[in-house]
């Protein structure tokens, strides 16, 4: 057979064909640019967010380790190190914990503890969670390393390596004062949330070794990082192999909730599919129309002997060239856009400005690959069609003829409008492609609009806060290691009360109480709450009553409380005759039973309550949600008891204020927030106070909303643009394709105005069908996406973007009205005779 080696020939023909289709090339490159721009942006944003979120989570934890073993023996450490499910084992020792370490220059209530990390713990577990490490881990006995926030608390804003700091601490029975030298410092996630007011000062191995005999209260913990996806059975086997001693605990942290839930994955895939589909439809349409317009050309090529694969090659080469230009420009634009928008987006979405990650190689590869695939599959089918066409078919081919599928009934008085309907619905495939592209674009647009407008910041605040500002006593928070303290002293309260524009102040007080254990009253409750705790026998509390303690929570009775819990006798509650139990299972504690109790205080060293004062009795008058247990600072065997403020003030004058809720006049929110923040900062107990402000949360969310709207809106606009370009392209091309038909119509007596009306009707029919699809199928898609979204953003309140839809509808209407006029105007620029000759 004859050799068919002709790459050069195909390339030359391809170049010629490319140069003679400038309009097609411009539109195609534009479509590819838009597609790759969107993909680049989506990938960059998504990838950066996931990475940044994961990094933030790491920094929140402060360690890469995900399991701990307290007081490990050397043998146990060896077992861990030799286990193939264990990546690293680091050791940390809190060498001086009991008793405070005080910094001599410090006039705040910040508690210091000396801590040691071994090399593995420092390098593998801790360093990855830190930022901006300056200097090195202490080596000498007198060297220390601290976090920059700790140094700031000490009044040191510009630390220098080699600076000296004097700390006093108890070592054995001795009171020691030692001068330490700063060997390094670092940035870490604000530890004050996690550890209360404890600031860790890192010391060297030498310090630990030199003071070994005196460090009798060292707490030694093995920090362990397990392999990913370790199974529960493997964790159990590992624990068994350690042969734990009495009171030794091996705990594994639950896996951090990945942001990539199934729903999020589906949503992201859906968005990517949308983008690819829109880009595909546009490029496919462009090339399909181009093939149709040049069918005679391809037929002629076949006549002179060009094979179908060569014809395919001509088109695919052009596709590659267009793709290269389009992907380069689109990716670059996408990268520039993302570089600007991603940090803004992430700062507004993440709690702290930590770990912002920019675009990387995989994002670029993903964009290039996805866009390349889109272009390739969009061009392939038209290329195959062009290759398959026979010369005879091509010669006889009439542009509009092949696609008519609809049978039209004969009408007595046929109108131009009916002709328009027949023209649109006659070619079902083209009609479907145009409608699909338009519907997808508009649906994506309004979906993003709906998601953003649904993030109702008022709703968020209402669902999370009952007041405008909430001040929390950190020392009463669950998990706080040190003593509970009265951080809201009289001076503080008075300053608050004297502030302008504060409508209402209410407080929650807390007091440790020791109820008398009675089987009839508490038996079922204790059985249920302590089930699974094999060591605890409920009658145990009879023998050790000071272990059966609880928190008494004093609340103010508000109107909203009365309205929500109508079955409670609030007068009796206010007078202290009844109490309420925060419990979701009323069958465990009987309403009407009496609790007898004494006030108490907690003894840290023994873990027991010390009972003081008189005995009191109060009747159980009802129940409250379990969330009221969050006002307490401990998990207790006895249930919490909620009473009125009046009652708790009468029996426990020194009850600790755990929360202050403030309601503010609307117009003065910002000013009051500033005043309250200033009051807290200037308070001597500032480290023990947390400020939660609805105003600041709303402001933060507003920024998120704006950013989301900016980013989402940009993507939506691009998607809509693709659909619109496709639409304009289809209208324009169908007019060009039918130029022969139009001149025939004109030659037999249709006026220009009638022809203009015909094509205008056709595009308006497309518009009407598109809007119908958007309102039906499009809204269905919107609801699906919204449901997924609202499972993640639980406070979202559905808000249909009616204005956006009307705006888009209006814009489309204008396009449908004016584009045919412009296209026809261009088409009719020469005389009938000239056009007849051209189209023969």
């Amino acid at each position, binding site marked *: 057979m004859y050799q068919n080696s002709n790459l050069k020939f195909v390339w030359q023909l391809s170049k010629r064909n490319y140069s003679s289709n400038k309009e097609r090339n411009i539109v195609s490159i534009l479509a590819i640019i838009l597609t790759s721009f969107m993909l680049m942006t989506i990938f960059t944003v998504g990838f950066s967010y996931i990475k940044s979120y994961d990094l933030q989570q790491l920094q929140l934890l402060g360690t890469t380790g995900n399991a701990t073993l307290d007081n490990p023996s050397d043998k146990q450490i060896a077992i861990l190190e030799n286990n193939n499910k264990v990546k690293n084992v680091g050791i940390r020792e809190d060498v001086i914990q009991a008793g405070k370490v005080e910094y001599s220059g410090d006039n705040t209530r910040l508690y210091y503890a000396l801590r040691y990390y071994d090399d593995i713990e420092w390098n593998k577990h801790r360093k990855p969670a830190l930022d901006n490490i300056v200097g090195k881990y202490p080596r000498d006995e007198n060297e220390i390393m601290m976090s920059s926030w700790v140094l700031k608390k000490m009044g040191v804003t510009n630390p220098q390596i080699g600076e000296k700091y004097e700390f006093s601490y108890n070592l054995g029975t001795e009171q020691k004062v030692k001068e330490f030298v700063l060997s390094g410092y670092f940035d870490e996630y604000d530890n004050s949330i996690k550890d209360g007011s404890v600031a860790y000062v890192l010391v060297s191995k030498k310090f630990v070794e030199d003071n070994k005999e005196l460090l009798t209260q060292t707490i030694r913990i093995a920090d362990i990082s397990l392999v990913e996806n370790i199974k529960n059975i493997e964790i159990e086997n590992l624990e068994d192999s350690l042969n734990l001693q009495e009171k030794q605990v091996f705990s594994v942290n639950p896996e951090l909730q990945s942001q990539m839930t199934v729903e999020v994955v589906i949503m992201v895939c859906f968005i990517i599919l949308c983008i690819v589909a829109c880009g595909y439809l546009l490029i496919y349409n462009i090339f399909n129309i181009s093939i149709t317009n040049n069918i005679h050309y391809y037929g002629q090529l076949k006549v002179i002997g060009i094979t179908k694969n060569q014809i395919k090659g001509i088109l695919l080469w052009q596709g590659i060239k267009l793709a290269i230009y389009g992907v380069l420009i689109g990716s670059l634009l996408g990268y520039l856009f993302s570089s600007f928008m991603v940090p803004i987006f992430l700062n507004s979405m993440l709690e702290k400005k930590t770990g912002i990650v920019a675009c990387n190689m995989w994002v670029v590869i993903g964009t290039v690959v996805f866009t390349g695939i889109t272009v390739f599959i969009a061009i392939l089918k038209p290329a195959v069609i062009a290759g398959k066409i026979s010369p005879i078919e091509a010669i*006889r081919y*009439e*542009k*509009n*003829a*092949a*696609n*008519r599928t609809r*049978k*039209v009934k*004969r*009408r*007595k*008085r*046929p*109108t*131009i409008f009916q*002709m328009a309907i027949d*023209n649109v619905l*006659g*070619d079902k495939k083209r009609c479907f492609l145009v409608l699909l592209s338009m519907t997808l674009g508009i649906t994506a647009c309004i979906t993003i609009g709906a998601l953003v407008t649904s993030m109702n910041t008022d709703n968020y605040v209402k669902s999370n806060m009952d007041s405008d500002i909430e001040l929390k006593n950190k020392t009463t928070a669950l998990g706080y290691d040190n003593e509970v303290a009265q951080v809201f002293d009289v001076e503080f309260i008075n300053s608050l009360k004297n502030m302008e524009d504060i409508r209402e102040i209410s407080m929650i007080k807390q007091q440790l109480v020791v109820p008398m254990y009675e089987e009839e009253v508490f038996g079922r409750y204790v059985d249920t709450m302590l089930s699974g705790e094999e060591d605890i026998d409920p009658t145990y509390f009879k023998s050790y009553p000071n272990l059966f303690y609880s928190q008494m929570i004093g609340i103010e009775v508000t109107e909203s409380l009365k309205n929500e819990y109508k079955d409670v006798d609030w007068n009796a509650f206010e007078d202290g005759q009844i109490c309420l139990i925060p419990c979701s299972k009323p069958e465990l504690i009987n309403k009407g039973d009496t609790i007898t109790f004494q006030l108490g205080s907690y003894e840290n060293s023994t873990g027991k309550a010390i009972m003081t004062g008189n005995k009191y009795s109060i009747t159980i008058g009802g129940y409250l949600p379990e969330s009221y247990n969050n006002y307490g600072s401990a998990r207790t065997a006895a249930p919490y008891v909620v009473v009125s403020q009046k009652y708790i003030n009468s029996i426990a004058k020194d009850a600790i204020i755990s929360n202050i809720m403030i309601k503010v006049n609307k117009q003065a929110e910002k000013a009051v927030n500033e005043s309250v923040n200033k009051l807290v900062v200037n308070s001597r107990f500032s480290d023990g106070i947390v400020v939660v402000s609805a105003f600041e949360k709303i402001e933060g969310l507003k920024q998120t909303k704006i950013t989301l709207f900016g980013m989402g809106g940009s993507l939506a606009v691009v998607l809509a643009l693709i659909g619109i370009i496709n639409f304009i392209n289809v209208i324009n091309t169908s007019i060009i394709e039918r130029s022969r*038909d139009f001149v*025939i*119509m*004109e*030659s*037999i*007596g*249709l*006026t*220009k*105005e*009638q022809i203009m009306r015909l094509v205008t009707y056709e595009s308006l029919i497309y518009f009407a069908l598109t809007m119908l699809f958007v309102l039906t199928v499009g809204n269905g898609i919107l609801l699906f996406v919204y449901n997924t979204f609202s499972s993640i953003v639980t406070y979202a309140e559905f808000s249909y973007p009616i204005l956006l839809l009307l705006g888009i509808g209006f814009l489309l209407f204008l396009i449908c009205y004016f584009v045919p006029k412009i296209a026809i105007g261009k088409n009719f620029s020469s*005389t*009938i*005779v000239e056009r*007849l000759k051209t189209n*023969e």
Partner: protein
Amino acid sequence: MDIVTVRNLYKKYGSKENQVIALNNITLSIQEGEFVAIIGFSGSGKTTLLNMIGGLDKPSDGEVIIAGKKINQFNEDERTLFRRRNIGFVFQSYNLISNLTAYENIILPLQADGENVNEKYLNDIVEILGIKNKLDSLPRNMSGGQQQRVAIARALITKPAIILADEPTGNLDSKASLEVINLLRGTCKKYNQTVIMITHNDNLAQLADRIVRIEDGIVRC
């Protein structure tokens, strides 16, 4: 009575040294009901003359009077309307709309006028033309002869005073050509229409009532 009168008709294209005179001072009258064949070599001006008469183009100078109306003075829309209601065109390449059936092609001029379709009249035409069973077919499913008959039906549907046929048999074989000419003659007689036909074929021209020869834009009798 003269249905078509052309007086001192000129049509020039281009200017100065590139100027081409397609029609050079043509004066011609055609009677109502006459079947006229216009013959001449390629480029002689036959089609240009037909386009002037049909209102597809405007003369550079002179008058074109159809049924007493000076159509050279009409604007484009007026000429189009006039053409729609008074003139039927038949082209060499049929010029059917490719995605309309035969029926839809035929009634297109009525559709433009918003007129009802006179089904009896249409039936008569399609019977005479022998295309009754092709009314629901698309052009690509018809032979050249059938397509040309559909084109003739379209030209007849508005009952025009004049039929202008520009080489109606140019793309047909001899048998089909003869059939088409006989059909044109038949309908011309039946409906008392004037037919002006351009043809290269002298034999077919002989079937006309009168032959008008054009050479270099001038009528040679």
